[in-house]
């Protein structure tokens, strides 16, 4: 997760701020105008980093919101008297924000390449809209003759006609936008956005409606992009469709990456250095004949920067990422088996004629099951028996072709995964599914947050204590307390699997579906985790898919045997061990000796 900036970064930012404050004192008109433009662009680029760096949405259409913000100033201005900035600026943010809501509602349905192209296309649509129609002068653009003033109750507080006043206002807004976006990113809402960037599937499985979060992020970024647009129109007093030019979006992405993706302060530095380099390359007295071909030179420099320093300027300031800890980690405490309180009961899950076909292949075929609460239910079967498909159906990751699923008697068939998760079903995956760039504790905190996943929770305090306690309890239960502040990517494989179980505990799920939780664990870890599962079944329902036959026969209360998608047998481990059909179809082929031995 994004931390507060390091002292070195703060010093650099403070020095830049002081230098900025002094520009109108020592610089001439040109310097003030240039710096104002850079500051406004920094606000724009900062808002884009919320999308690209924090949420992981590479938008190539951010200029749409810049342009709309600028046009909003034209719409609220008149030729007779100055408009009030206290109306004009929010108007720019609102217009851009609403457009972002409409564009985002469609764009956020897509991912990856599609998202890049779709956002670019929509920005181009805005360009065409203002270019082809005669809104605000059509392709010729339109002038805003009188600059806005900041006035309150009839008194003019600031006249933005004054170059220096406007400069200081923009600088103050840049600082404000930085502080707001940093706070937003570090809030529970921002925690989810960062989680989405690294592992959207996990967030969805925890019960977060990631579509809504991504859309919110798109709207907030759009609104701040609109703010930059209004400010820009204020300096120039002119709006034209060129404001929507997709090169603006491209250059803004360049600045984000040059500065350091996802750091918020990086994009400010990126904007500054990019603009200064561009200015120098354009000035003949500095670079001689290159000035005529400055964009060629800029392109070459950018390619060198992208290939040479992918982490940007922030990468230098933040130094090397913390190195992985030494292999010899101290032994971890054994999980506590005595739980202070057992709260509530697990959930009952039932299926009726559940089937799923992939084309001609029927992976799960007419499975009817009833799994009682507060028990450990094992699902076994040879490879390809449909175990993973079955749990994907139960958790809502896949839609059933036919049949129904009931959770505590409620029909949940066809609900999306996050909605199923919100009803108290948590799952782990065959391939460990955690948020690698978060610490162990942060992983559990975001899971605990899933108990109240309102999309707009900016307050850090509300539920904070409760969530801290839940995370601490879960980490303690799986024996990872000593690793709370370790980056999840630095944990051993077994520890990562335990972290995934801790996340499910912290999330408050009452029905846990675990897909091979013991995979890759040593005997000592296996013992600890199976003990934990038994303990969890006091107030959870646990469904376990596992290949370790010794472990699953030891820990499960009931066993379900799947073969070729069909339910072959269901019963206690003793019954299953004696069942001749199971012996023949499954155990006989693979591991009779294992079963007999246990």
């Amino acid at each position, binding site marked *: 997760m994004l931390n507060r900036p390091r002292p070195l970064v703060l010093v650099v930012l403070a020095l830049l701020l002081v230098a900025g404050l002094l520009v109108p004192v020592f610089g001439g008109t040109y310097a003030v105008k240039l710096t104002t433009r850079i500051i406004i662009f920094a606000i724009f680029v900062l808002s884009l980093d919320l999308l*690209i760096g924090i949420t992981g949405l*590479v938008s*190539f259409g951010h200029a749409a919101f810049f342009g709309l913000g600028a046009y909003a100033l034209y719409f609220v201005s008149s030729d007779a008297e100055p408009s009030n900035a206290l109306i004009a600026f929010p108007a720019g943010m609102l217009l851009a924000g609403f457009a972002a809501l409409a564009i985002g509602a*469609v764009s956020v*349905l*897509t991912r*990856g*390449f*599609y998202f*890049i*192209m*779709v956002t*670019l*296309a*929509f920005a*181009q*649509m805005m360009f*065409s*809209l203002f270019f*082809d*129609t*005669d809104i605000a002068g059509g392709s010729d653009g339109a002038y805003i003759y009188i600059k806005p003033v900041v006035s309150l109750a009839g008194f003019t507080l600031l006249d933005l006609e004054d170059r220096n006043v406007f400069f200081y206002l923009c600088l103050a807004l840049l600082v404000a936008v930085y502080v707001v976006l940093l706070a937003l990113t570090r809030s529970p809402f921002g925690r989810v956005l960062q989680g989405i960037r690294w592992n959207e599937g996990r967030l969805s499985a925890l019960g977060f409606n990631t579509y809504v979060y991504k859309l919110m992020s798109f709207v907030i970024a759009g609104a701040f992009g609109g703010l930059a647009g209004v400010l820009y129109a204020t300096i120039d007093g002119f709006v034209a469709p060129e404001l929507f030019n*997709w090169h603006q979006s*491209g250059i803004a*992405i*360049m600045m984000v*990456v040059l500065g350091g*993706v996802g750091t918020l302060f990086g994009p400010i530095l990126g904007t500054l250095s990019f603009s200064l380099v561009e200015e120098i390359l354009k000035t003949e007295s500095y670079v001689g004949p290159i000035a005529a*071909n400055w*964009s*060629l030179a*800029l*392109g*070459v420099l*950018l*390619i060198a920067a*992208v*290939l040479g320093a*992918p982490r940007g300027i922030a990468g230098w300031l933040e130094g090397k990422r913390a190195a992985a800890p030494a292999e010899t980690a101290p032994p971890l405490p054994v999980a506590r088996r005595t739980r202070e309180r057992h709260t509530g009961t697990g959930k009952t899950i039932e299926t009726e004629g559940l089937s799923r076909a992939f084309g001609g292949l029927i992976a799960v075929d007419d499975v009817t099951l009833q799994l009682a609460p507060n028990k450990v239910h094992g699902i076994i079967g040879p490879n390809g028996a449909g175990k993973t498909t079955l749990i994907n159906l139960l958790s809502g990751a896949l839609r059933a072709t036919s049949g129904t699923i009931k959770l505590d008697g409620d029909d949940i068939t066809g609900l999306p995964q996050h909605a199923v998760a919100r009803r108290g079903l948590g799952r782990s995956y065959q391939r460990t599914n955690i948020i690698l760039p978060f610490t162990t504790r942060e992983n559990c905190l975001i899971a605990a947050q899933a108990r109240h996943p309102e999309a707009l929770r900016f307050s850090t305090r509300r539920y904070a204590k409760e969530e801290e306690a839940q995370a601490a309890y879960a980490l303690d239960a799986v024996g990872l307390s000593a690793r709370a502040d370790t980056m999840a990517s630095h944990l051993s494989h077994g520890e990562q699997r335990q972290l995934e179980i801790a996340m499910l505990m912290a999330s408050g799920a009452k029905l846990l579906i675990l897909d091979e939780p013991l995979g890759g664990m040593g005997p000592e870890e296996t013992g600890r985790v199976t003990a934990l599962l038994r303990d969890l079944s006091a107030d959870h329902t646990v469904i376990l898919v596992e290949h370790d036959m010794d472990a699953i026969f030891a820990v499960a209360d009931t066993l379900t045997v799947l073969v070729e998608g069909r339910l072959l047998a269901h019963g206690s481990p003793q019954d299953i061990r004696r069942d001749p059909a199971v012996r023949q179809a499954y155990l006989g082929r693979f591991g009779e000796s294992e079963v007999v031995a246990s």
Partner: protein
Amino acid sequence: MELILIQILNGLQYGLLIFLAASGLTLVFGILGIINLSHGSFYMLGAYLALTLTSYTGDIFLALLIGIPLAFAFGALVEWLFIRHLYDRDHLQQVLLTFALILIFNDLQRIIWGTYPHSVPVPSYLDASVQLSDVLSYPVYRLAVAGFCIFLALCMVYIIQYTRIGQMIRAGESNREMVEVLGIDSRWLFRFVFAAGVSLAAAAGAIAAPIESVYPGIGEPILIISFVVVVIGGIGSVKGAFFGSLLIGLADAFGKVFLPEFASVVVYALMAAVLIVSPGGLFGRA
């Protein structure tokens, strides 16, 4: 009635032209896994090659005969210099590097050819019109453009369906990892596909040069419309690019007649509608 016929012809001709550009783009997406923003520059390259080569040879088709191999070689060079460094990098870096290439190509274009618009002559033997009715006629050259595009499209179908390299492309189209699993030296396949994509875009730019004038930035509208086509058709699908192009070509032609101010909005609205119904495009991988 004639008006509708003319718009259908215009729409199909424009759609076929977009198809040449979009098919290259979608193959580069699908097989190389690269988002190539500089694809429009190659369309521009084709237009300017047509300008220069036609002034020497006097005929646009001779210019194409020389220009397409040149564009192919240029594409292979760009792949070797820049694109191959991007295969293991994330989308963001691909966006940046190919965007930086646009800045470079635009400046190179300005240095070599200058900023004035130019026109390329229609060959005299095609400089005629077909009489559709008493009042309406249709230029023969536009029909020739459509014919040329169909010819190239058929060449593509042949290469993709019946040659060994086409077999590799099909393997890569359905599953990118498949190419490596099959033990194909992906470096040469990638270079070939990229250069072929460049040649297709350049061919489109060249054949269209006599219809529109040749000017700086001529490739950018084509790039964006090709993106729309790829989104509609589904990434990596040549078939999707074909139907997407014709759909967009017709929507654009009819939009211009019935909603002149909102013609381009019609195209994007179509894209939004497809995305809502099928976010992976009409012929995309599931």
